[in-house]
């Protein structure tokens, strides 16, 4: 019963933690733009939090390098289960244009499991909202069919 309630709460009001993992800022400002009046994700109950312990959803932008991989893993481990990871932008998905650069490990999925990939360079705010919705479908009762692909 309580589990169901928590699950419902999580789906209806996911709290997200944004971590810039070495992005060019393009996707970061688009993630921030989601919070501003024009897109206003707070109307869906999505709140941007600074503490990984409060977060349900980790939004990662940018490529992973050796130094921030440790930070990323730590943030992921500090988040309570069930947790979702959104890789935003070409860099977060695969390393994008920087795949061959010297200090790039690759996409976010090289370090932590990723639930939803949001393509684009940078990903548009609409795409990020879509990504959150697709991720939440994974938590819900229709697990496995929801979301776009």
């Amino acid at each position, binding site marked *: 019963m309580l589990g169901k309630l928590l699950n419902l709460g999580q789906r209806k009001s996911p709290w997200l933690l944004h*971590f*810039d*993992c*070495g*992005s*060019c*800022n*393009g*996707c*970061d*400002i*688009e993630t*921030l*733009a989601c919070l*501003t*009046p*024009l897109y206003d994700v707070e109307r869906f109950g999505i709140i941007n*939090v*600074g503490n*990984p312990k409060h977060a349900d959803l980790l939004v990662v932008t*940018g*490529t992973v*390098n050796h*130094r*921030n991989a440790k*930070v990323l893993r730590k*943030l992921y481990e500090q988040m309570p289960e069930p947790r979702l990871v959104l890789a935003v932008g070409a860099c977060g998905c695969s390393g*994008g*244009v*920087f795949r*061959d*650069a*010297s*200090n*790039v490990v690759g996409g976010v999925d090289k370090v932590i499991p990723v639930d939803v990939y949001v393509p684009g*360079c*940078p990903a*548009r705010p609409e795409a990020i909202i879509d990504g959150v919705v697709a991720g939440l479908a994974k938590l819900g009762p229709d697990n496995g069919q929801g979301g776009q692909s």
Partner: protein
Amino acid sequence: MKTSILPFGPQHPVLPEPIHLSLTIENETVLEARPALGYVHRGLENLVAARDMHQMVQVVERVCGICSMIHAMCYCQALEEMLDIQAPPRAEYLRVIWSELHRIHSHLLWLGLFADAMGFESLFMQLWKIRERVMDINEATAGNRVIVSVNVVGGVRRDIDEDQVAMIEKELVTVEREVKQLSLTLLTDFTVKKRTKGKGVLTREQALELGAAGPTLRGSGVAQDMRQLGYAAFKDLDFEPVVETGGDSWARAAVRFKETLQSVDLVRQALAGLPQGDLAVKAKGKPEGEATARVEQPRGEVLYYIKANGTKHLDRLRIRTPTFANIPPLTVMLPGLELADVPVVVLSIDPCISCTER
């Protein structure tokens, strides 16, 4: 009194980007600040070995997503100088238009983040609402909101037609009006003044000695702006650098605020004088030798150094970004501050960490 070391970042709610500062504090006062970087380092200067010089345009655009177009413009100017070609006049005017649109959206973004760092949430939302109009212009004219990808070596890739000119002019009227409405709030509000006046002071001498750039330099009373060099179409436009003498956070904010309105004016001038003609000249030949190019970004001067060896792959590409120059001044600004002022002062140099580390 014992001192303690407080880690600030890399994941901090006020910072959109990861930078780590080790703050040595006594009570609430900062004694020393030592930055630790490397969380965004990609090593993209090294990509010149894997990508040819035309592909690098798209790579340098992604040095920083906020001033992407200006990075690419600087890179193209350096290569154009080396190949001894001249972008057509229409391309130069279009470059000015897009680069100034970038400056408007970057400054509005920064002013918003600055307000957010002070806890002035409604101002943040208001500024970002205005900024979306500029993003719409970018998307309508160049196809992408943030990274517009309009430059090629020798000119630009996209054109602006008559309808789009009208659309830009219409939107800019609204942007200008709405920004002006916020001028009293931003520059004279009690809360804002309390949090910024006299905080993080950088004197003119310190600014010059530590090699500060952009609004950080101009906020300390030095009238230096790379647009005075007259690159692209700036030589034909009426332009005067914005200078403030306070050297504190407030002065830097005031410089950026005034530059926003100045950029609106520059876009208008460029639209009015937009000549007809080709968009790009063909970039023939392989570059050889060395060249530098400098342009003014929203955050300050950016310097590109290029060494080419006569093949389509460059030998060395070095990007000196404005925040790279503004981090040493930060180590001077922070000591003596209250801990609560640290985020505001760190933001006052408009740090772009992905630029710094590339």
